[in-house]
């Protein structure tokens, strides 16, 4: 994916030069190892600011709503599925977008690399299958790229964009040998009490900064239910029940829409894996309705439609 940078710059420059778009949304090099910052450029000569590597984990679909310009956006598999969801939900207009597809081989989990590494990381480089960490004391380390991917990327089966106007590179081979729901099954196998304890423990460190919600491209409600005051659904303090209610309800709101892009987990400052909640709903949608979010523009979402053969065993 390293080689994508040149192509990304080239495409951005051309689109702006030809005035096909007013702005291009991509990434620029971050100020820290393993961090890139989403940015926009409006002038062709700024195209060289853009980069693309294994640290572009932020979901750029987030930055498309509420804009009037004609925009070009770089989209990984998950980003493109969220763009589809946005189009279906009338949040963005297809004809105002130029989607530049980026076939993806997964993003690096910076927390994982940091926790595996002893000592201060100075910089991190990568090639097709290795991640190379340079330490500030001069030493260096190498990891197998597959081993330090974000949790969702390691399990991703839609690495290629599903919708695009042009591509940065040839499509990549999809992973077929992954067990997507192993962690969800593990929780399903617990009994009620264990599950309750499990989630209590999982969500206990939450500081309610709402980074998960704000990083999520699905969470675009003008007023989130946690902010509503008439009625006020939940308290605003550090009460554990309130915290759990927030996470459970947020997950419900993502049912049948979540693409498991991993933005929530990546954004969380205290490292909560709230994907364990959204993935359950993703799994249910897949198993009950054969539905995966954002795969096509021509189909209404599972929870948006009624089919006579929908499962209804739970109804008396």
């Amino acid at each position, binding site marked *: 994916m390293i080689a994508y940078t040149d192509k990304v710059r080239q495409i951005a420059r051309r689109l702006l030069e030809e005035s096909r778009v007013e702005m291009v949304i991509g990434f620029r090099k971050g100020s820290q190892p393993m961090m890139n910052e989403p940015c926009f450029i409006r002038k062709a000569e700024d195209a060289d600011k853009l980069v693309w590597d294994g640290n572009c984990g932020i979901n750029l679909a987030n930055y498309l709503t509420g804009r009037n310009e004609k925009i070009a956006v770089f989209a990984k598999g998950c980003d493109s599925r969220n763009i589809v969801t946005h189009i279906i939900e009338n949040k963005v207009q297809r004809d105002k977008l130029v989607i530049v597809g980026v076939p993806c081989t997964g993003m690096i989990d910076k927390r994982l690399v940091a926790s595996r590494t002893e000592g201060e990381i100075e910089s991190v480089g990568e090639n097709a299958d290795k991640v190379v960490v340079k330490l500030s004391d001069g030493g260096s380390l190498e990891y197998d790229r597959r081993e330090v991917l974000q949790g969702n990327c390691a399990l991703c089966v839609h690495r290629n964009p599903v919708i695009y106007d042009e591509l940065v590179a040839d499509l990549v081979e999809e992973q077929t040998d992954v067990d997507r729901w192993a962690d969800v099954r593990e*929780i*399903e196998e617990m009994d*009620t*009490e264990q*599950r*309750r*304890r*499990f*989630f*209590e423990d999982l969500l206990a460190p939450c500081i309610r900064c709402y980074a998960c919600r704000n990083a999520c491209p699905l969470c675009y409600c003008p007023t989130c239910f946690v902010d509503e005051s008439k009625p006020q659904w*939940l*308290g605003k*303090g*550090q*009460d*554990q*029940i*309130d915290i*759990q209610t927030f996470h*459970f309800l947020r997950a419900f709101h993502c049912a049948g829409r979540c693409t498991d892009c991993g933005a929530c987990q990546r954004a969380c400052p205290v490292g909560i894996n709230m994907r364990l*909640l959204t993935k*359950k709903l993703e799994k249910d949608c897949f198993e009950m309705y054969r539905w995966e979010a954002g795969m096509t523009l021509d189909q209404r979402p599972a929870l948006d439609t009624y089919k006579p053969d929908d499962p209804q065993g*739970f*109804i*008396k």
Partner: protein
Amino acid sequence: MEYMGVEPDRLHFSWISSAESTKFVEVVSEITEKVKALGPNTHYVKKEAKVA
């Protein structure tokens, strides 16, 4: 909700037509029995907020 640790019998769904008063009575009785068997809901109830 079951997944997040609420007992399955604490949540029921049903379909009753406006003419089916007998079914209504049946369902109410059945649910009440089940919940009685389960005992009171002690988890996931917001008690007084516990803060500093």
